[in-house]
């Protein structure tokens, strides 16, 4: 049975260009995947260091203590990596992971600007500001 097609409506003032959208999205999708794989590789190497040192200590996550500041701020994490700590390296990988969606949103602003879709440029800027606030404004950036 043929699938009924909805007619193209001439009343639509703006028709998004799916081809360009898709091209942009493909680039962004690949960017995200490489970001995730890189962060997974960093987390894995951190895991090797961490496990080689602490494998036989007891694991205890039953009581919540909160992480020390070296795992809660960008500066602390970098210092921890410099000191050769495995968990610092894991945390660095996780920071990179959180940054991948932020990178995607930033590149979307560029994409919408090229398409001269300023409504969506402004929407994307709002989303980016929320993300940046969460990433830098909550104390990690200290």
């Amino acid at each position, binding site marked *: 049975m043929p699938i009924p*097609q909805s007619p193209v409506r001439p009343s639509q003032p703006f028709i998004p260009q799916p081809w360009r959208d898709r091209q942009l999205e493909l680039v962004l*999708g690949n960017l995200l995947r490489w970001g995730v794989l890189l962060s997974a590789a960093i987390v894995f190497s951190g895991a090797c260091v961490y496990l080689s040192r602490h494998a036989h200590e007891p694991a205890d996550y039953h009581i919540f203590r909160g992480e020390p500041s070296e795992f809660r701020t960008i500066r602390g994490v970098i210092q921890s990596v410099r000191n050769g700590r495995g*968990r610092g390296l894991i945390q660095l990988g*996780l920071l990179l992971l959180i940054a*991948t969606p932020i990178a995607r949103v930033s590149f979307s602003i560029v994409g919408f600007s090229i398409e001269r879709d300023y409504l969506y440029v402004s*929407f994307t800027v709002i989303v980016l500001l929320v*993300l940046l606030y969460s990433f830098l404004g909550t104390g990690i950036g200290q």
Partner: protein
Amino acid sequence: MTILTFTAVVLMVSFIAGLLGSLTGLGGGVVLVPLLTILFHVDIRYAIGASLVSVIATSSGAAAAYVREGFSNIRIGMFLEIATTFGALLGAFLATWIPTTALAIIFGAVLLYSAYLSRKPRPEAQRNLPPDPLATRLRLNGSFPDHQSKRHYNVQNVPTGFGLMFGAGALSGLLGIGSGAVKVLAMDQAMRIPFKVSTTTSNFMIGVTAAASAGVYLSRGYVDPGLAMPVMLGVLGGSLLGSRILVKAETKSLRLVFSAVILVLGLQMLYKGFWGKI
């Protein structure tokens, strides 16, 4: 349990959760927090922090594959991300002062609702809906490939969908999950977006939404590297494998098993929450 055995077991469980979540389309994140708290006696706040990180990994890792299929709608995604990111920020701040027993009860309710939704047959998509003026102005209407031709769709009820997405974002920030169930409610039921478009677009949004609350969790010390490491690597590995093997014949029984698991975990979380055993 030593750190080595703990890491190995959590890695394995997360791998299976990621694999099943990806094969059934129900998402692995939703079972992780209850599994970590019930089986491994992990404090729910650590569990939520680790789960949130793994949610970003699966969403971002699968994005390229979804785009290639040509179903996702970047404008719907970006517009609704305004709602989900604000919601996620609110949820993450709420999570820092809500008692853990209340978190467990909310989590249990979300699990039960997800189990119910996964068994409910999807309503047949309505075609040829009239264009909604607001959706048209926001350029949300689109098309997708369907049997060698293109099918257009007109998005409906934008304000309702936007409001529900704010709720989905808040739940995601509160519980560290992708909250796919609420997104289905908003995008499929309210906005009448075709199933494939809504699932692939929502996968995109999950990563951005989770990133909005991850910063709050990290800065509050909820993300423990020793716990997040096996969870993130396991879920990512499982979901990447799951997106490669498409066992279509098995999916139906897999879905049944997985929704039964979600149901049992939901009841357990409610029990733990109400009896203060979390």
